[in-house]
């Protein structure tokens, strides 16, 4: 009798204890597991990819003469561990990876981690402002098109966004360079900084931030000028995708009864747009912005190439053409990590905006 009472008393206590582990922690733990799995998958796929192909980095990196000397080739392979069986190479890589060592780049001769530390901030300096601008412009224009659905504005926006989707980014880069550098001379030809300036002391690795922190305003202005054109191109690309998405998300919301109800309450049209439409329409937009950011990173490969921007895209390009496995792996891991982190942020923001997620 008493035992059963004790058991009955315990059960609810245990049930009560379970939710005490905050939802957020459980959510993050689950996400972490998924991320680790994804990163592991990336190493497997990249390794497999590089090893099923006939060539290896020896043929890509050694000169014609060196390739004719078997001793040299053997030495090169031994130096980079290419003479070991694939699984040994892979396990060795994983072991080092677990110790925070991404290996050494075969083409730069530096640790991949320090290469990444050097190139990533340059790319972020392009990608972050482009993404922010694209989100702002995409939301505003997409919303405008949705509100003016079926009318001339809508058609113009539609054609404009299709045009943006259909333009090769590298070609658009050349066109703006021709216009603003060659014809008008109002913009630098490329790179991150004019040759008159030396890079500001490294804090974040982003020149605009570092020069501002150091109070070097002439450098800052120069860095900003170098940013304008590549950011313009990347923004155009991203905005084109976002506009279409925002428009259809907003149209969906506009057709709901709650927007009708908001009008029926006598609220001014602008209040309905800002408070009721924007809030609901933004949720799906936020969920795609993760994918949009990944697409934007793709765009940087081509745009960096034209603007001579020493970022991760250029690094990836050079690593790929040199079959430099440690660097390719490093870039792949970095990109996959960015992808998951951005999606994590997206989910957290989603929870902040939508009470149905927050409270459940």
């Amino acid at each position: 009798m008493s035992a059963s009472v004790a058991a009955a008393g315990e059960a609810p206590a245990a049930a009560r204890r379970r939710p005490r582990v905050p939802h957020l922690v459980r959510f993050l733990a689950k996400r972490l597991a998924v991320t680790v799995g994804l990163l592991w998958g990336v190493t497997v796929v990249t390794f497999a990819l590089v090893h099923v192909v006939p060539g290896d980095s020896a043929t890509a990196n050694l000169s014609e003469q060196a390739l004719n000397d078997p001793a040299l080739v053997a030495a090169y392979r031994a130096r980079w561990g290419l003479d070991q069986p694939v699984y040994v190479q892979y396990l060795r890589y994983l072991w080092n990876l677990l110790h925070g060592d991404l290996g050494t780049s075969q083409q730069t001769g530096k640790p991949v981690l320090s290469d990444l530390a050097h190139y990533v901030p340059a790319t972020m300096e392009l990608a972050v402002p482009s993404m922010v601008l694209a989100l702002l412009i995409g939301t505003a224009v997409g919303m405008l098109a949705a509100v003016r659905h079926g009318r001339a504005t809508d058609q113009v926006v539609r054609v404009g966004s299709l045009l943006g989707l259909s333009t090769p980014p590298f070609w658009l880069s050349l066109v703006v360079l021709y216009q603003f550098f060659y014809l008008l001379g109002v913009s630098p030809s490329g790179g991150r900084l004019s040759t008159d300036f030396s890079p500001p002391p490294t804090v974040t690795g982003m020149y605009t931030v570092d020069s501002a922190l150091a109070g070097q305003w002439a450098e800052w202005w120069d860095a900003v000028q170098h940013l304008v054109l590549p950011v313009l191109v990347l923004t155009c690309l991203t905005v084109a995708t976002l506009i279409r998405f925002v428009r259809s998300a907003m149209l969906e919301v506009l057709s709901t009864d709650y927007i009708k109800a908001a009008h029926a309450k006598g609220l001014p049209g602008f209040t309905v747009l800002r408070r009721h439409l924007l809030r609901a329409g933004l949720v799906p937009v936020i969920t795609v912005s993760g994918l949009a950011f990944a697409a934007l990173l793709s765009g940087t490969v081509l745009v960096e190439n034209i603007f001579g921007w020493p970022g991760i895209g250029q690094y990836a390009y050079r690593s790929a053409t040199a079959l430099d496995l440690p660097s390719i792996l490093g870039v792949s891991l970095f990109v996959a990590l960015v992808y998951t982190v951005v999606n994590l942020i997206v989910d957290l923001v989603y929870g902040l905006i939508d009470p149905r997620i927050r409270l459940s």
Partner: protein
Amino acid sequence: MLLATEGLTITLPGGVPVVHDVSLEVGAGEIVGVAGESGSGKSLTAQALLNLLPAGSTVDGAARFDGKDLLGLDRRGWQSVRGAGISMVFQDPTAALHPMLSVGTQLTEHMRRHLGLSRRAARARAVELLDQVRIPDPERTLRSYPHQFSGGMRQRVAIAIALAARPKLLIADEPTTALDVTVQAGILALLSRLRDETGLSVLFITHDLGVLSALTARTYVFYAGRVLETGPTPAVLSTPRHPYTAALLGARPHGATGTGALQPIPGSPVIPGAAPPGCPFEPRCSYAVDACRTAPPELARTGPDRYAACPVAPELEVSA
């Protein structure tokens, strides 16, 4: 009369007329029913009274509300009528409440605007309103979100929102259709009590004739965008003068006849824009005469305060 429309005709973008020549009256403190099937134009008529029709629609005729000419209003004029003069409760409260705004925000945003209340005063009135629609724990409700309530509670919240800016007329567009039967009765009782307490007028739109008899004093029967019959609700339901009303009553699952035999209406409803030249119900009507096929019959008096748009109505002895 608080609201009076005359010859209201609605044309949707594309030029298809969907509502023809509708004359409605709603007195102060009166609950008036509008009955009809989906697509009969009853909801579009309601939306026209709040200027909520799709952009590009045109409304002809006249509509006077509380001394104002509704059809002549500009944007600002509409803003002051909507919410504070006429307000609306929708069919599905889940769809009509914003999922991401708190009940408090949705309840006070237009109240503050129309009544010029401070944040504090608006909140106090919001608590009062929630109490009035019988929602327990109003203080907590204000901080809650719609998804945390049941369907019936959501509709109560929606009614509170509709009443927040002290409108004189509430348009209730099938407010109980999406709710359980047991919850329906509560909402109907609430509307009836609000009328008694505050002198609110209600235009109650429904396809459920049973609901009408419980709540409304007068009824308009809509079909294919026209009023076919109107009169005091008990009279219309007990001795329908229009074959369509009769058919509708006969077609009701729990028919008033009590014989248990259901009589389906033959044929199918009119598709807007493809109405026959005469009476829209003529193709499905077993009483139709030649006069029904040439032009839509006018509403004609058939009894005290009763009208039907049917040439055979006076002779009609329908037992519903």
